[in-house]
Every structure is written in structure tokens, then in C-alpha cells.
């Protein structure tokens, strides 16, 4: 029994900026990867240029979103005061900083494209680590799944954004189809938001792509991906509210719980 039914953990204090950033930053990172892959394959210049623009715009939206969520936004540069490899937040802050610079520079100097793609891979995956490496039970239990889940969803979004821009490369639709297939299999926590996000990221775009409704599939993927991030942050909030002093560690949850104390008569 928890003390006076009080949860063990504090809920996350993050507001809408953080899940929005997870979405925007992830899509931007994946777009940078697509840009380089398309370049290597000698693809259409227009596709490469659009991918670079999505990466740069996303990166430049990410920073203000992250700063806005800080309790003391004026001190955002303190993030780059130290590098703490023990903290996924610190690793992420440096990744965002380098990715932001590289993806913006790529617009003028294509030599930065590989660096942009490399840090873009980090952008698309580290946010899963950021949630996983915490005390919040539902995040921690999914620490292995979240980075892959977010990566697939980011890749699907980047392809979908390019498709909505009118690009019709078969590579884009195969990658998006693969991402949708993976998202169909991705684990889902309880909650209406989580379920909606899951359906919109997985089965809906998968089926729409099979029947040739490419743009509709792309729109579903993008919306599903955004909702997925909100759903996972919300799941953490619910999980911390329910956190019990009995479920902190594996040994504790395996131990037999104390018999529930009856509500004592206070009179």
C-alpha cells in the first residue's frame, strides 16, 4: 500500500512543446537521412533539396520548442555548459545543437549533408532513450521499444511529408510501407489517444498504401506520428500517478504484497 494513496513518482512537468518537438525533431532527422540516401543513389535533385529543407526547417523549429518548455528559458545555453553522457537529455541537447547547425548549413554547403544525416539518425532515435531512461514505470519498461518505435514513426513521417510535396519515388513508398508495417506491430499502451495514434500510424496507412491511396496514407502517418508522441508523454503522466511503492523494481514487484490494510475507523 502506498502512503495515503500517494504515488511514488512525480509526474513529468513537460507541456505540449516536448511531444511536438519529439515529432518535429524526429521527422527532420529522418529527412536528413533520406536526403543523403537519395544523393548517394543519384536521385532527382528536387527530392534531395526538399529533404534538406524539411530537415532544416524541422531543426529550426525544434530549438524554440525546447527552449519554450524550460522553466528558465533564458538559461537554455546552460545545456551546452557541460556534456554529461549519463544524461540522455544532455546527449540530446548536443545532438540538437549539431544537427541544427549541420542541417541549416547543408542548404548552402552540401558538404555538411553527411553530418546532418548522422546527427539526424540521433534525432530520430534518442527521444525514445530520453523517455526510457527515467523512473516512470511505463517509459522504463519500454526503454528498449521506444527508440525503435520513434525511429520507425519518424521515418514514416519524413517519407510522407516528401510524398505530400509531390514526390513519387518508389523508395519513399516502400520505406513508408515498411514503417507502417512496423508500427502495426509496435506495442501499444492503454488509452484512447494511444490507440488512435497506433491505428493511424500502423494499419490505416498500411492498408491505404496497399490500395494505392498514397497521399491519404501519408496524411494518416503524419497525424499518427504526432499523436504517438503526445500519447507516450501522457502515458508517463498516468503511469506516475499510479506508481506504487511496490512496483519500483523487479524484486519488489515479485515479492508478495502486504495484505491490504482495511480503512481504519478514525472515530
Amino acid at each position: 500500500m502506498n502512503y495515503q494513496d500517494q504515488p511514488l513518482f512525480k509526474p513529468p512537468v513537460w507541456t505540449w512543446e516536448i511531444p511536438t518537438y519529439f515529432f518535429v525533431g524526429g521527422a527532420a532527422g529522418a529527412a536528413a537521412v533520406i536526403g543523403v540516401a537519395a544523393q548517394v543513389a543519384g536521385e532527382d535533385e528536387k527530392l534531395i533539396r526538399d529533404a534538406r529543407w524539411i530537415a532544416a526547417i524541422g531543426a529550426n523549429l525544434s530549438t524554440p520548442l525546447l527552449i519554450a518548455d524550460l522553466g528558465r528559458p533564458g538559461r537554455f545555453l546552460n545545456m551546452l555548459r557541460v556534456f554529461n553522457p549519463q544524461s540522455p537529455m544532455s546527449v540530446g541537447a548536443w545532438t540538437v545543437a549539431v544537427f541544427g547547425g549541420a542541417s541549416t548549413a547543408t542548404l548552402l554547403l552540401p558538404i555538411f549533408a553527411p553530418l546532418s544525416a548522422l546527427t539526424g539518425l540521433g534525432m530520430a532515435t534518442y527521444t525514445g532513450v530520453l523517455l526510457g531512461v527515467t523512473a516512470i514505470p511505463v517509459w522504463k519498461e519500454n526503454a528498449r521499444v521506444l527508440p525503435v518505435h520513434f525511429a520507425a514513426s519518424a521515418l514514416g513521417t519524413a517519407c510522407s511529408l516528401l510524398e505530400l510535396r509531390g514526390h513519387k519515388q518508389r523508395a519513399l513508398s516502400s520505406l513508408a510501407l515498411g514503417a507502417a508495417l512496423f508500427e502495426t506491430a509496435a506495442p501499444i499502451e492503454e488509452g484512447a489517444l494511444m490507440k488512435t495514434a497506433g491505428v493511424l500510424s500502423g494499419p490505416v496507412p498500411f492498408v491505404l498504401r496497399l490500395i494505392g491511396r498514397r497521399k491519404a496514407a501519408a496524411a494518416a502517418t503524419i497525424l499518427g506520428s504526432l499523436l504517438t508522441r503526445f500519447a507516450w508523454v501522457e502515458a508517463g503522466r498516468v503511469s506516475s500517478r499510479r506508481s506504487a511503492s511496490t512496483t519500483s523494481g523487479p524484486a519488489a514487484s515479485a515479492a508478495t504484497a502486504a495484505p491490504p490494510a482495511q480503512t481504519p475507523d478514525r472515530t
Partner: protein
Amino acid sequence: MQSAARTVKGTTGFFTDSTLCIGCKACEVACKEWNDVPADGFQFSGKSYDNTLGLGHSTWRHVKFVEHETQIGAGGNAPHVITWQFSSDVCKHCEVAGCLDACPTGSIIRTEFGGVYIQPDICNGCGYCVVSCPFGVVDRRPTDGRAFKCTFCYDRQKAGLQPACASACPTGSILFGDLEEMQRAADARIEKLHAAGMTDAKLWNPTGTSVEGTHSIFLVRGDERDYNLPSNPEVPATVMKPAWSSAAAAAGVMALAALVAFRLSK
């Protein structure tokens, strides 16, 4: 982090003994006064004599009013009367501290006394320590934007004083001193209580867990989880390797898939 004048040498700790606590909340008040911690507001919780309910950004010491059913015959209480255990909670100042690991600004540091301290002039309120504490201690103050918790009275310790809560405690329920000395005092106390027949008394200090022990030792009666003291706390770092491995694998597959997809479709 060298200090010129201090009387306590080496690492320090609290030993909080719930069997001596009378629930007066002098520790809460002394902490608030010394550290200039704002009021919590006037909420009525309806839960025992506790309207604060837990540690937070404006509560760095918190007296729990744990209600247990009385065993008939024990203590001479009537069967319909509950027993109260009071226990003053505080930041655990973990040996492996989730908040310290999580801090991206270097605001959270380990002091020369072994405590975990948030430097208020550096914290930018990212909130990552809030979700990384395995005891739900750290919290961000909405009116301020920064994260706050017990400072272990770092300023007082620097000046050779004990923390304000320990100074104010009228019953010796909160002891402060050299960590090893506190462990010895706790061991001696539990032995004495067990010898006197209080067999449900136990010490809480999670030395065998990933937290690797704390600078706050507690003596409680009954199930420690009734005090929100988890029997097997876990620091977030335990999933660090699997999470990053998974991220690396995902990044590798993504890069490969993109390269292959564009190569094949060309």
C-alpha cells in the same frame, strides 16, 4: 569544492527514527524558515493530519502520518483505534542519484559531504531530474521554473552546523552526523528495539540496489512500502545500455533501409 571551516569530516547522513517522531512538524517548519521555502497553500487533504502529503518543490522535509490497524492487546489500544506512525521524510541523497545522472546542465552536483545539491544559479528548469528520481522527491516549482529539493543544508554544513531539521527536532528522531556513525546509531537502535520486543521495526537503506545506499537512513515499523519507501528502488541508469543499444540498432536499420530502398528503386 573545498571548504575552509567545517566540523563534520567526510560524508554525512541523516538517521530518521520513526519510533521517536511525535509528528510535531518542527523539522518542516525549521527547513522552510532556514531555506526560505515558500508556503504550500491551504489545501485540506482529508488524509490524516497531513495536508502536504509528500515531498515537493516547497516541502523538503515532510512528516508522514502512517496509519496502521492496531493489533488487539498491543499498546493497550482499543481495537477500533488506529495506530499512528510518524516518519519525517526527506531527500534520500542517493549514492547513485538518478537526478544527478539526468542533469544536462551540471546544476546538480555531489557535495563534499556526500549530499546531492541543485545549484539554483545553474538550473534551467528542464524537468528531467523530476522524472529521474526513483523516490519522487525532486519537483519543478511552477512559480519559479527551477527544480528544488532538500539541499542537505549545504550552507549550514559548510559553516559546521547540522541541517535545520535535525537542529529543530525535539525528540532526537532526526539525527545527523558522520554517515558511518549514523549507520552505527541505527544498528544499535534497531537492536535495542528488537530486544524490547518491537520486532516489526526495521531499517531502510537500499544498499543492495542500484541506488547503492543513501545518506538518509530510516527506521520504520511494519512494511516500509506503507511509508512510500520502495523495497527495491531502481535508478534509471539500469536501462541505459538496452535503451542506447536499441537506439543504435534502430539508427543502423534506418540508414541501411534508406540506402537500400533508394538504390533498388533507381
